[in-house]
């Protein structure tokens, strides 16, 4: 796999990957964690773990057997490895999100969760963000402790390489529209940091992750991410978050885009009927979505006719609301090539592949492209 070959479809355009995962094993983060919880992380690091399933760290409650014959399970342990792998995929910039800590919202011990989120942020900023490596980070919010999250956002706002706030979404209870999180969203808005919702397939008693009845991961995976995004979108809208925080930008990741138009139309319809319950929504829910919400492509739907996907995207704003994401290094990652197949104009492709993300996350134009532009002149 040469870089050149892989670049072909996206040659001359910036490629920003809005969802890549760094390996955040407990033993990596332990040195950055305050006592006494450092002791817990050291202990967790010394016991065997399953992929995205560590009790007390990523309590995914996996009750299904491993896939007979095995399944791809990749991790990226260092920023250098991440840089090399993203370059091989033809990606200029990656927005880093956690791996095991995708299940962070399930942790019920507030003190521990607070210390862990602070340690993750310290570790991620110190170890992964280096000027020029094209890796950008999202400060992890601690839904268990909104007050401390505000301090973390204020602490890291303006830190080079910090471009977003990650909202742990798998099993978060209550959902992100709950007013207990108002101050987190206000802090993100004030810091001009977009918030990014990211779920993972977990089973928990919290809506909508009570997916214990599914016998296999196929069923859980189909439901897990999409339901988490739908539930949180409805939650954010039903308390008027986009109206109350009109500069807040909200990114929905890892659920594809097919679910978006249906939810959008459904909210528009019921807004007409129940407007008196949501009078803060002075425009249609879809109007707010088209101004303040972004949808990451992965795992991109693959209809028999690719034009159906482009049409689906158009319903919610198309290339103006869509961000490329690979989800590297996970088993269901998307190569940038997957979007090259879609019947988009070159301008639409450029926006989705990177230009939207450049402006959303305030990223510089990559040197690779500025140099290229200078050559002919």
């Amino acid at each position: 796999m040469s870089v050149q070959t892989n670049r072909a479809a996206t040659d001359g355009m910036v490629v920003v990957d809005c969802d890549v995962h760094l390996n955040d094993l407990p033993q990596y983060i332990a040195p950055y964690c305050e006592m006494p919880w450092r002791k817990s992380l050291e202990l967790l690091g010394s016991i065997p773990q399953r992929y995205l399933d560590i009790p007390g760290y990523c309590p995914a409650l996996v009750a299904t057997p491993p896939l007979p014959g095995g399944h791809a399970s990749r991790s990226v342990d260092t920023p250098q490895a991440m840089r090399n792998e993203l370059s091989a995929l033809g990606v200029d910039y990656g927005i880093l999100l956690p791996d095991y800590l995708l299940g962070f919202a399930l942790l019920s011990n507030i003190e521990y969760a607070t210390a862990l989120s602070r340690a993750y942020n310290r570790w991620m900023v110190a170890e992964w963000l280096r000027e020029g490596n094209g890796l950008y980070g999202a400060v992890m919010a601690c839904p268990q402790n909104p007050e401390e999250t505000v301090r973390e956002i204020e602490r890291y706002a303006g830190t080079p390489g910090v471009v977003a706030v990650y909202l742990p979404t798998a099993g978060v209870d209550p959902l992100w529209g709950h007013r207990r999180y108002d101050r987190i969203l206000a802090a993100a808005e004030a810091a001009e940091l977009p918030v990014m919702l990211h779920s993972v397939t977990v089973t928990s008693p919290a809506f909508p992750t009570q997916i214990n009845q599914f016998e296999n991961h196929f069923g859980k995976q189909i439901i897990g991410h999409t339901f988490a995004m739908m539930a949180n979108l409805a939650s954010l809208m039903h308390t008027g978050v986009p109206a109350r925080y009109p500069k807040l930008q909200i990114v929905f990741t890892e659920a594809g885009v097919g679910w978006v138009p249906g939810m959008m139309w459904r909210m528009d319809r019921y807004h007409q009927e129940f407007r008196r319950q949501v009078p803060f929504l002075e425009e249609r829910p879809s109007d707010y979505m088209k101004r303040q919400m972004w949808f990451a492509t992965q795992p991109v739907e693959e209809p028999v006719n690719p034009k159906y996907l482009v049409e689906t995207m158009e319903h919610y704003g198309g290339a103006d609301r869509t961000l490329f994401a690979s989800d590297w290094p996970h088993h269901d990652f998307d190569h940038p090539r997957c979007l090259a197949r879609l019947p988009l104009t070159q301008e639409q492709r450029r926006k989705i592949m990177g230009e939207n993300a450049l402006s959303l996350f305030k990223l510089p134009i990559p040197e690779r492209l500025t140099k290229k532009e200078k050559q002919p002149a």
Partner: protein
Amino acid sequence: MSDNHEVAERAAEAETKAPRSARAPVEYPVGSASEFPPGSHKIVQVGTQEVGVFNVNGDLHALINVCPHQYGPVCAGRVGGEMRCNASTDWKFHWSRDGEILICPWHGHEFDLVTGRCLALKEMRLRKCKVNVVDGEVRVSLGGG
């Protein structure tokens, strides 16, 4: 453009096109002014149309009894106020304009009786008719706007 907008346009077209372009407005007497006291509303037959006549703070408003959403009998709905919540109300729920908002009995769409506009969907509106009082008699005009 939303589906609802299109529905509203279709309804407006069906209601207005033929009579409006073909004929001059026709005035229909619908009762004496005393039958329409402030705060009241009733549905009257005007030619082939049902029209809701509303007395809002002493001013009469006449609206065709068809909701542009799904053609429900909108004028048979309750009259209420406008719930607001924004920066100017300090994000507190605030009830205002009591008696000026019509709520369709079918799906709860709210309409401003004065302008005919739907509160949730600004492009959607009820069709208003001209109404005036001549010698104590309420007259509703159909056609010609």
